[in-house]
């Protein structure tokens, strides 16, 4: 695997862990806390968090498609 391939693999795993894994703890509002931040830019904070990391994942896939995933002779 090339160096770029390794970086992209790490970025994808990191984005998945942040988006739908341990990263949720950073923004997860406590239901018992009335002052917890539940919205960001008028949207639920968890929604914004998930969609943002999804965008990162898509960027990683597009870069991998253009650079690392090789074309075969058909």
């Amino acid at each position, binding site marked *: 695997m090339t160096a770029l391939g390794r970086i992209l693999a790490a970025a994808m795993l990191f984005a*998945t862990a942040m988006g*739908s894994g341990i990263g949720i703890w950073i923004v*997860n509002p406590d239901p018992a806390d009335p002052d917890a931040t*539940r919205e960001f830019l*008028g949207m*639920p904070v*968890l929604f914004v968090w998930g969609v943002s990391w999804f965008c990162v994942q898509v960027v990683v896939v597009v870069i991998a498609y253009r650079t690392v995933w*090789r074309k075969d002779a058909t």
Partner: protein
Amino acid sequence: MNPSLIAIGVYVGVLIAIGVAGMLRSRNSEEDYYLAGRRQGFLTTAFTIMATMFSSAAVLGLPGQVYQDGFPFFFFALNLPLTACFVYLLGSRISRIGRARGYVTPGDLVADYYGGCAGVRLAVALCGFLFVLPYVVMQVKAGGHLAMTLFRDDFDVSDDALFDTGALVFTGITTAYVLLGGMRSVAWSDVLQGVLLLSGMIIACAATIAAMGGLSAYFEALTELPPEAQSVPGVSGAWTVPKLMIFAFFSGVASIVQPAQWMRFYAAKSANTLRRTALIFAIVLPVCLMASMMVGLGGRALYPPTVEESGAVTPHPDVGANDQIVPNLMREHVPELLGPIGALVVAFFMVAVVAAAMSTADSNLHALSAVLTRDVYDRFIRPKASERERAWVGRGLIVILSLFAYVLVRYGNRHPDFEPIKMIAQLMLVAIAFSLQLVPAALDVLFVNRGSGRGALCGILSGLVVVFLFTPLPALFSESAAHSLADLTLDLKRNVDAGFCGLFVNVVVFAVVSRFTTKPAPDVVKAFRKSGQS
């Protein structure tokens, strides 16, 4: 006449026409029936892989889960870009090896690598069977539910009769076009079904947002959901962060090694086809799945469920069952929003839901017939059967499996306490947990090359047993034992997924047994590596 009935009638007519067209183009060979001659192009491959993945669970089950629990299950959509990477990484290698060596089923590849080990072939077939059966059952069940939701006002019969008829008609039509044209018909119909279901989800999301007064009002309503619904682990407390993360990492690869997808990798024209498919998959599928879940979230704001003190969530009386939130929302709000066009939009959406269920059921039935014919009948029952005989046995199996799924669904409908067939999303999770047990052996064959056949066999079987103990299935054999097991596994289930527990045991057993047993010869490993990379 109900416009949905007309729309579904037209749709079914087109499907049968596709089945006949597939039959006319087919050559009378096993490779053609199961893999469409290994000549599937990029668009067909992309749509058939996406439509097979996007089942009634995505259209009914997952929005239902979001409706019940709030935001946590929304994060499930984020495993799809990672799954797209597996489509390329695993898929392209499976495609190259399969083409070079003439494989048809997953068992062909895995068992051949491990020296033709019969036990490994059977274990791989069992993994496939345990994934496919719940998946087909949930699609047939969705067919019954849809008939009830759609035609309750049009026919003067009981709900049970409507459910049974809907499930039976659904089973009959799906079976018919799979029988007619094999993989070619399945893949062509998947293109139509893929376009329908993906656009159907976007339309449903747009309609929900419009019904709630626009995007700002939609998000405002979401921010006013109860605090538990806006945080992890959700209203029922079932989706803890570790569980979500484990699920995001492993469910994608589990869905990719199931027989129907694996055979689509063999059927692709080249590895390039899968490279382009992966890109489309990473972008289109998550957007549509998020749209589907946004409908569930909107439904939660419009029809709030009741949360009991025990934590149990009861759907709003107008919704009926969690799985029905999307069709009910469409039926209630779209006609009043769009007037006469609304009825047509609802009809289009209902066809999309039927398409989602059919596209998964047909692919899985077709794949399971290949697995049972090639890996069981051909190897252990009639090793000298001709290709023609095997093709007919495969068709017979499709009929038997379809009827078996229908009988299970009918029984489940009459016996609401029959645990194994309750909520659609739960069935999906069980199927994925079983499929996950094939991953260590698949990765070893394709990339790692350090395991032995006996290691793979022991690993798969131990993983399957662990998953079985975590599901409601032991209740089929002993109620008391099932209760004891449920107590034992309760804490583990709260934080991790059943599939992951099985995977952990599977990997440990695989590694330990492989350490002390004979591995494939170096020349076999070298030949596989060469096939996979060339």
